[in-house]
C-alpha cells in the first residue's frame, strides 16, 4: 500500500535538508523538493480512482489498547487538501530558496517546513480520530518552530508562543471532544464515526463533544474570539505565512469541520454556533483588514475573514453551501498564497511592508504588480476570476438559509457587507502599494525579484484565472469527490459557470464591488473614526493575562506550600487519617477470623523496648544525639522482630540501612546545633500529640485488622516460581533481580543520580568547623587512635570477605547485591573513620562516581543482553555450581545484574558519605586562622 508513503516521504524529507550545508542552496532546495514531489506523484496516481468514487484505506495497529491505529484514508476531501498542501508546499520550497537571506539557515527552515507538511498530510489522511489528534498537535508544534524561525527576534518568539498556547489549548479541548465521541460510538475509527450521526446526535454528550471539537477547530482556524494569534504569527518568514495561512495550518480547522460534517452537522446547535461564528469573524476581521498598515497584517486579517466565510458556509444547512465552502478553500489557497508571496517580494526588494511608505511600485516591478493585482481582484470577487464564483455561490446560499427565522434577511445583508469590506481592503492593498506616485525614501531601491521567486505566483495566479474561466473543466471532478466525502451523498445539482443570468446574487456582487470602491474612497473617515478607540495589542493583552495567571497560580501555590515541613506532614497525616479511618469505620469488628499468635515474654519485652525507644526518640528529640541513639535502638528491635518472624533478609537490610543512616546523621549532626531550642507552643504540642496518637492508633488498628484476616496475596506466585523461573531459593532476592528487575534497575539509577547530585552539591562546599563541642570542651587531640586504626585495617579484609560471601550466596540464602554493597561501603567507611580521608584516599585511589555509573551500566547491559538471545529485556538464564565452604552457588545472569546493583550501592553510598566527610578536612580552622579570617 502506498498510502503510508504519502505521509512517510515528507517525514523522511525533513531529514534530507539537514544533510547538506547551508551554502549549497540549490542542492538543498532541490533535494528537499524531491520527496514531497514523489508523494505528490503518488497522490495524483490515486486521483482518478478517487474522482471515480473510490476511497482508499490502509491500516496498521499502533496502540490497540487506546484504540489508536496508524490508519490512513484517501477520499475526495483528503485528495483536495493533499493537492493543496503538496502543490503549494512545493511552490513554497522554490520561493523560499530565493527568499531566505544568506545568514538564515536553510536546512533548518526546510526541515521545519517538511515536518509541518508531514503533520498536515497526517491530519487530512488520518482515518482514526486519535491519530488525527496526534497530527493536529504536531502541526501546533511544528508551526511553533516555523513561526519562531527567526528566534533572535522577540516578536517572533512571542508570536510563536502565543500561537502554540492558543492552538495547543484548542487541541487539548479537541482531544476531549474526540474522546467523548469515541465513547459514544465505541471506536475511534473514522468511517464508523462518520456513519454514526444519529447515534452521536441523540446522545446527551453530543453538546459537550461538539463544543470541544469546535473549540479545537475555531482556535486553529483563528475564528473570533480566538483570532488574535494569527496576525502575530506574521512574525514568521513570509514563505511560512504563505504556506500556513493560505493552504495549511488555518485550513486544518475548516478541514475538521468538513471531515466531521457527516457526524456532527445538521443539528440546530451546529447551525447556529458555526454559522454565526463564521459570520461574525468574517465581518470583524474584514473591518480590521481595512485598517491595518502592515501589508502582511492586512493579509492576515483578510485570511481570518475568509476563514470566517468558509466556516459560515460549513455551518449553513444546505449541501450546496458545503460545496461552496470546499470550492472557496481551493480559491482562497491559490489567491492568498500568491498575495503573501507578493508581499514577501515587496518586503524583500523594498525593505518595508508599511503601506504608508509604499507607493507606485508598478513601475519598478510590473510583473509582481500585475500578478498581485489579479490575485487581489480574485480575493475581492471580481468576475472572470475564481474568487468571484465561490463568492457568488456563497451569496446564493446565504439567501436560502432559514437561519434566524424572521430575521433571515440579516444573513445575506451581513454577507454582502463582508464582501463590501473585502473589496475595499483588496483595492486599498493594490492601489496604495502599486499605484500613485513613486515612493521615496524606501530602505532599498525597488526592482523586480528574480524570476524563480515570481514563478510560484505566476502558477497560482494562472490557476485563479483558469478556474475562474472554466471552473467546470478544472475542478468539477475534484469538487465532486470532496463533496461526496463531506456530505456522504452525491453532489447536488450545481452549475459551475461564470454566468447564471441576472439574479439577486449578481446584484449583491455588484453592490459589493460598488460599495467596496465607495468605502475605499472614504476610508479616511473610517481611520479617523477608529482613532477614538484605544489601541489594543492582542499580544500585550495575551502576555499580560498569562502573567496574571502565573502570578495567581504562584500565590495559590505559596498559600498551600509555605515551606513548612510540619504543615505538609500535617496535611499528609490528616489525609491518611481520614481515608484509612473511614475505611476502618466500615468494619464490623476489628479482629478478623484468624487467631492471633500466642504471646510470649520475648515478644512482650521486644515490643515494650520498641515502644519505649520510639517514645524516647520523640520526647528526647531536642537532645539530638540521645534521640539518635534511641532511634538506633528502634532499628535494632525492628530487625530483631524481622528475624524472629523468619525474615532474615529483611533483618539484614534493615540493619545495614540503619547503620548507614546513623553514620549519615552523625556526619550531618556535626554541622547542626547539639540541642534545638523549644519552638512549639503549648497548643501546637497538644495538636501534634493528638495527631500522632490518632495516626498511630489508626495504623495499628489497620495492621491488626489486616493481619487477623485471611488474605490472598501474590506471594504464592513468587514462592512457586522462584526456583523454576528465577533459579534462586531466596525469593526476596529473586524478586529483586528477576521478577521485578526492571523496578530495581530504575531504583539503582535513581540512587546513582541522587548520589551524583549530592556529590556535585557538596563538591565545593567547605563548612566552618567549630573547634569545640557544645559544652565548650575542645576536641580530643588524638585524631586517629592507634588501636582503632590498626584493628580496623586488619578487619577490612574480613569485612570484604563477608560482603563477597553475602553477595555470592544472595540468590539462594539471605543476602544479595544490595546488602553486600552496603556492607562493603560500611567497611570502607570504617577505614575512613579510623584513618581519615587523606590516608584512605591515598590508598583507595579511585573515584566513586565511575563505580556507581559502571554498576548501572552493567545492570542495563545485562538486561539488554537477553535481547541478543531473543528474550525479553532482563530475562535471566542460570545454572548451579558448587564452591567449597561457601556452598552451592548459582551463576545466573541475574548475578551479573546483582553485581550492577552491588557496584551502584557501593559507589553511591561512598560518594555520599565520603564527600560529606570531606566537607571540613582541608581547612580546619585553627585559632590562628580564625583570628586571621575574622
Amino acid at each position, binding site marked *: 500500500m502506498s498510502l503510508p508513503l504519502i505521509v512517510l516521504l515528507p517525514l523522511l524529507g525533513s531529514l534530507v535538508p539537514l544533510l547538506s550545508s547551508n551554502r549549497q542552496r540549490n542542492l538543498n532546495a532541490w533535494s528537499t523538493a524531491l520527496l514531497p514531489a514523489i508523494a505528490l506523484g503518488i497522490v495524483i496516481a490515486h486521483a482518478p480512482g478517487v474522482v471515480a468514487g473510490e476511497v482508499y484505506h490502509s491500516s496498521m495497529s499502533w496502540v490497540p489498547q487506546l484504540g489508536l491505529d496508524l490508519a490512513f484514508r484517501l477520499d475526495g476531501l483528503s485528495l483536495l487538501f493533499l493537492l493543496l498542501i503538496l502543490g503549494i508546499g512545493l511552490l513554497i520550497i522554490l520561493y523560499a530558496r530565493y527568499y531566505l537571506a544568506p545568514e538564515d539557515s536553510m536546512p533548518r527552515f526546510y526541515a521545519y517546513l517538511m515536518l509541518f507538511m508531514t503533520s498536515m498530510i497526517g491530519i487530512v489522511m488520518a482515518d482514526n480520530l486519535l491519530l488525527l489528534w496526534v497530527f493536529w498537535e504536531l502541526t501546533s508544534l511544528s508551526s511553533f518552530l516555523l513561526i519562531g524561525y527567526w528566534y533572535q527576534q522577540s516578536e517572533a518568539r512571542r508570536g510563536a508562543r502565543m500561537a502554540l498556547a492558543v492552538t495547543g489549548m484548542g487541541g487539548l479541548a479537541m482531544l476531549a471532544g474526540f474522546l467523548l465521541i469515541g465513547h459514544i460510538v465505541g471506536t475511534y475509527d473514522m468511517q464508523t464515526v462518520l456513519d454514526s450521526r444519529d447515534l452521536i446526535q441523540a446522545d446527551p454528550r453530543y453538546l459537550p463533544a461538539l463544543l470541544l471539537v469546535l473549540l479545537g477547530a475555531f482556535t486553529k482556524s483563528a475564528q473570533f474570539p480566538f483570532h488574535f494569534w494569527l496576525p502575530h504569527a506574521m512574525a514568521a518568514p513570509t514563505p511560512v505565512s504563505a504556506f500556513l495561512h493560505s493552504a495549511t495550518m488555518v485550513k486544518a480547522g475548516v478541514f475538521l469541520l468538513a471531515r466531521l460534517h457527516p457526524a456532527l452537522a445538521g443539528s440546530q446547535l451546529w447551525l447556529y454556533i458555526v454559522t454565526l461564528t463564521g459570520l461574525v469573524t468574517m465581518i470583524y476581521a474584514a473591518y480590521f483588514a481595512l485598517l491595518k498598515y502592515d501589508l502582511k497584517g492586512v493579509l492576515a486579517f483578510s485570511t481570518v475573514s475568509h476563514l470566517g466565510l468558509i466556516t459560515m458556509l460549513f455551518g449553513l444547512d444546505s449541501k450546496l453551501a458545503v460545496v461552496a465552502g470546499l470550492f472557496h478553500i481551493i480559491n482562497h489557497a491559490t489567491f492568498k498564497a500568491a498575495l503573501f508571496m507578493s508581499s514577501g517580494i515587496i518586503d524583500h526588494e523594498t525593505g518595508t511592508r508599511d503601506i504608508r511608505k509604499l507607493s507606485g511600485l508598478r513601475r519598478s516591478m510590473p510583473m509582481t504588480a500585475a500578478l498581485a493585482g489579479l490575485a487581489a481582484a480574485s480575493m475581492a470577487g471580481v468576475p472572470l476570476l475564481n474568487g468571484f464564483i465561490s463568492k457568488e455561490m456563497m451569496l446564493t446560499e446565504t439567501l436560502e438559509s432559514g437561519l434566524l427565522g424572521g430575521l433571515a434577511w440579516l444573513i445575506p445583508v451581513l454577507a454582502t457587507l463582508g464582501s463590501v469590506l473585502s473589496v475595499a481592503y483588496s483595492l486599498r492593498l493594490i492601489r496604495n502599494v502599486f499605484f500613485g506616485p513613486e515612493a521615496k525614501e524606501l530602505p532599498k531601491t525597488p526592482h523586480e525579484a528574480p524570476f524563480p521567486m515570481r514563478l510560484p505566483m505566476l502558477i497560482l495566479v494562472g490557476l485563479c484565472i483558469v478556474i475562474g474561466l472554466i471552473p467546470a473543466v478544472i475542478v468539477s471532478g475534484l469538487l465532486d469527490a470532496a463533496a461526496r466525502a463531506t456530505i456522504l451523498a452525491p453532489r447536488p445539482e450545481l452549475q459551475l459557470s461564470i454566468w447564471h443570468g441576472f439574479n439577486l446574487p449578481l446584484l449583491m456582487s455588484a453592490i459589493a464591488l460598488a460599495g467596496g470602491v465607495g468605502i475605499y474612497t472614504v476610508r479616511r473617515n473610517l481611520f479617523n473614526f477608529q482613532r477614538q478607540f484605544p489601541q489594543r495589542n492582542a499580544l500585550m493583552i495575551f502576555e499580560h493575562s498569562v502573567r496574571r495567571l502565573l502570578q495567581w497560580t504562584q500565590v495559590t501555590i505559596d498559600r498551600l506550600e509555605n515551606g513548612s515541613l510540619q504543615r505538609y506532614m500535617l496535611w499528609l497525616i490528616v489525609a491518611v487519617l481520614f481515608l484509612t479511618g473511614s475505611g476502618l469505620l466500615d468494619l464490623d469488628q476489628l479482629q478478623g477470623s484468624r487467631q492471633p499468635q500466642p504471646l510470649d515474654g520475648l515478644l512482650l519485652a521486644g515490643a515494650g523496648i520498641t515502644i519505649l525507644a520510639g517514645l524516647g526518640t520523640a520526647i528526647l528529640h531536642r537532645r539530638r544525639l540521645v534521640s539518635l541513639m534511641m532511634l538506633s535502638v528502634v532499628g535494632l528491635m525492628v530487625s530483631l522482630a524481622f528475624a524472629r518472624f523468619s525474615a532474615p533478609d529483611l533483618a539484614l537490610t534493615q540493619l545495614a540501612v540503619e547503620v548507614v543512616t546513623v553514620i549519615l546523621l552523625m556526619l550531618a549532626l556535626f554541622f547542626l546545633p547539639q540541642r534545638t531550642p523549644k519552638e512549639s507552643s503549648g497548643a501546637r504540642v497538644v495538636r501534634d500529640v493528638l495527631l500522632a496518637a490518632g495516626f498511630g492508633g489508626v495504623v495499628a488498628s489497620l495492621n491488626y485488622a489486616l493481619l487477623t484476616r485471611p488474605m490472598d496475596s501474590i506471594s504464592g506466585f513468587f514462592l512457586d516460581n522462584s526456583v523454576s523461573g528465577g533459579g534462586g531459593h531466596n525469593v526476596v532476592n529473586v524478586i529483586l533481580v528477576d521478577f521485578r528487575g526492571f523496578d530495581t534497575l530504575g531504583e539503582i539509577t535513581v540512587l546513582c543520580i541522587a548520589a551524583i547530585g549530592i556529590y556535585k552539591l557538596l563538591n565545593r562546599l567547605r563548612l566552618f568547623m567549630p573547634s569545640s563541642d557544645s559544652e565548650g570542651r575542645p576536641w580530643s587531640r588524638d585524631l586517629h587512635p592507634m588501636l582503632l586504626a590498626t584493628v580496623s585495617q586488619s578487619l577490612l579484609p574480613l569485612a570484604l570477605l563477608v560482603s563477597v560471601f553475602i553477595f555470592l550466596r544472595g540468590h539462594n540464602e539471605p543476602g544479595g547485591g544490595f546488602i553486600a554493597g552496603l556492607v562493603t561501603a560500611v567497611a570502607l567507611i570504617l577505614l575512613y573513620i579510623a584513618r581519615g*580521608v587523606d590516608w584512605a584516599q591515598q590508598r583507595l585511589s579511585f573515584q566513586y562516581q565511575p563505580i556507581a555509573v559502571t554498576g548501572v551500566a552493567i545492570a542495563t547491559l545485562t538486561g539488554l543482553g537477553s535481547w541478543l538471545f531473543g528474550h525479553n529485556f532482563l530475562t535471566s538464564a542460570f545454572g548451579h555450581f558448587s564452591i567449597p565452604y561457601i556452598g552451592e552457588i548459582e551463576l545466573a545472569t541475574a548475578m551479573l545484574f546483582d553485581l550492577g546493583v552491588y557496584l551502584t550501592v557501593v559507589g553511591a553510598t561512598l560518594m555520599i558519605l565520603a564527600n560529606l566527610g570531606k566537607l571540613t578536612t582541608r581547612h580546619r580552622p585553627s585559632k590562628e586562622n580564625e583570628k586571621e579570617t575574622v
Partner: protein
Amino acid sequence: MIDTALWIALALFCAAIVLNFYRALVGPSLPDRVLAVDTMYMNSIALIVLFGIWVNNKDYFEAALLIAMLGFVSTIAICKYLLRGDIIE
C-alpha cells in the same frame, strides 16, 4: 535438654537486653548510653543465633554476623563523634 537450655538462654539474653535498655534510657552520660546500645547489639547477636537454633535454620547467622560488624562500626562512629566531632576527617 537443648530445648530447656535454649529457653533459659533466651530468657537470660532477653532480660539482659531489657537491662541494657534501662541503662540507655537513664544514661546519665552519653558514653553510658553508647555503651548500653553497644551491649544491646552484642546481646542481639546471641539472640539471633538462638533464634536460629530454635527454628533449626542456619540462615540466621548472616544477620548475626552483620549485627556484629555494623554494631561495631556505629559504636566507633559515635565515639569518634564524641571525641572529635567530625567522624570522617
